[in-house]
């Protein structure tokens, strides 16, 4: 079991040090919520804020989501679990944030839990990783020896469905959508302003929460995130009607990895796969 207490202590210590030394202007991490199960994303900007920092198994939020609120040049320390670190890498690739502006406080963790259901979500969310891909400071010891779960294992069941069954499954799920857009709000990669779905020119889809518009919104969003989704699972946890969006994103991520030989947010020097190509890409991918 990850020693959450130790991480929290280290987090406070490092946050204090960085703020004190003036190395960063803000620390993006987790703060106390209305109870232990509901920590909040928190931006500590003064030493006085440091005491409010927490870390426990419910700290799922992908803090990379909040990086883009600050202009380039703002020095930011960010608490990054495995998935957060991948989001950071992806955002650096896309030049939304600059690596040199960041102090990444890596958090190796397993046993993270969904605050709604209390189930352990490691296999669903971390892209098969427990340790951050990139960090400057480590707030806990690197995790080794823990069972590695393939991030795509959960897909097997859905891939095995026949197409009619799968269509029925997704149709039912997407029909539930109330178009609250919590998914895109939670997503660290959904930074478009305006989002295509809010536009009138062109009007890609109906805005009412009905089947055709829902379908268009979600399918297009999957495409926009193809090769970019870093599998944090925040969209699904944010969804008030529990649409398992993470499954679809995982499937697209798996296909992209197989077709293009790279996973999102793993290497700073990669280019996002869909705005890149290799001459030797095979036509087989179109079959």
């Amino acid at each position, binding site marked *: 079991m990850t020693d959450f207490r130790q991480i929290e202590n280290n987090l406070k210590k490092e946050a204090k040090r960085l703020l004190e030394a003036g190395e960063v202007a803000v620390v993006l991490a987790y703060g106390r919520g209305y109870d232990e199960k509901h920590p909040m994303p928190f931006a500590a900007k003064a030493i006085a804020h440091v005491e409010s920092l927490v870390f426990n198994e419910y700290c799922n939020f992908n803090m990379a989501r909040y990086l883009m609120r600050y202009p380039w040049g703002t020095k930011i320390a960010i608490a990054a679990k495995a998935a957060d670190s991948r989001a950071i890498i992806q955002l650096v690739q896309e030049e939304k944030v600059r690596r040199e502006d960041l102090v990444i406080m890596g958090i190796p963790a397993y046993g993270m839990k969904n605050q709604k259901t209390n189930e352990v979500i490691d296999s669903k969310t971390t892209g098969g990783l427990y340790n951050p891909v990139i960090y400057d400071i480590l707030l806990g010891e690197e995790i080794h020896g823990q069972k590695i779960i393939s991030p795509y294992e959960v897909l097997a069941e*859905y891939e095995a469905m026949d*197409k*009619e*069954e*799968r*269509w*029925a*499954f*997704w*149709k039912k799920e997407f029909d539930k959508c109330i178009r609250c857009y919590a998914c895109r709000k939670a997503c660290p990669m959904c930074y478009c302003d305006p989002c*295509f779905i809010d536009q009138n020119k062109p*009007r*890609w*889809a*109906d805005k009412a929460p*009905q089947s*055709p*518009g829902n*379908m*268009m919104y979600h*399918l*297009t969003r*999957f*495409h926009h995130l*193809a*090769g970019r989704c870093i599998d944090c699972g925040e969209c699904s946890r944010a969804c008030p009607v529990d649409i398992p969006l993470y499954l*679809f994103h995982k*499937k*697209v991520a798996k*296909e*992209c990895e197989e*077709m*293009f030989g790279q996973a999102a947010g793993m290497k700073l020097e990669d280019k996002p*796969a*869909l*705005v*890149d*190509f*290799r*001459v030797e*890409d095979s*036509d087989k*991918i*179109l079959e």
Partner: protein
Amino acid sequence: MSFEPKILGIACNWCTYTGADLAGTTRLHYPQNLRVVRVMCSSRINPSFIFRAFQLGADGVLVGGCHPGDCHYNTGNLYARRRLAVTKKILEFAGLEPGRFRVEWISASEGNKFAEVVQEFTAQIKELGPQQKLKIEQLQEKA
């Protein structure tokens, strides 16, 4: 009455559209279910065009571009290949029949290939029957 599918074609100006013209000049007959939209390059194709076409009632969508390496814009179709591959995977995972969406590289000199592909694709769509999954039933729901 037998099922006459509606098939949307999106063809790049330099290769496939010209190839389609060549099929005409050489009087190669093929089924009339395909309606072609001309774009300058296969890379112009926004994946949402394809999702939308299925919503608007297309029973099949056929995209045609220059052979990789021969793109009029050097590398346009190399990007298109990746983007359309992902489009295909998304449609498949949503539960649409994989055979309804197809990408073919047809050069300006391949009039006969164009005719053959249309022939084959139309037969395939007829086999699959009407596309009802994504199609919007009531007209007013259209955007």
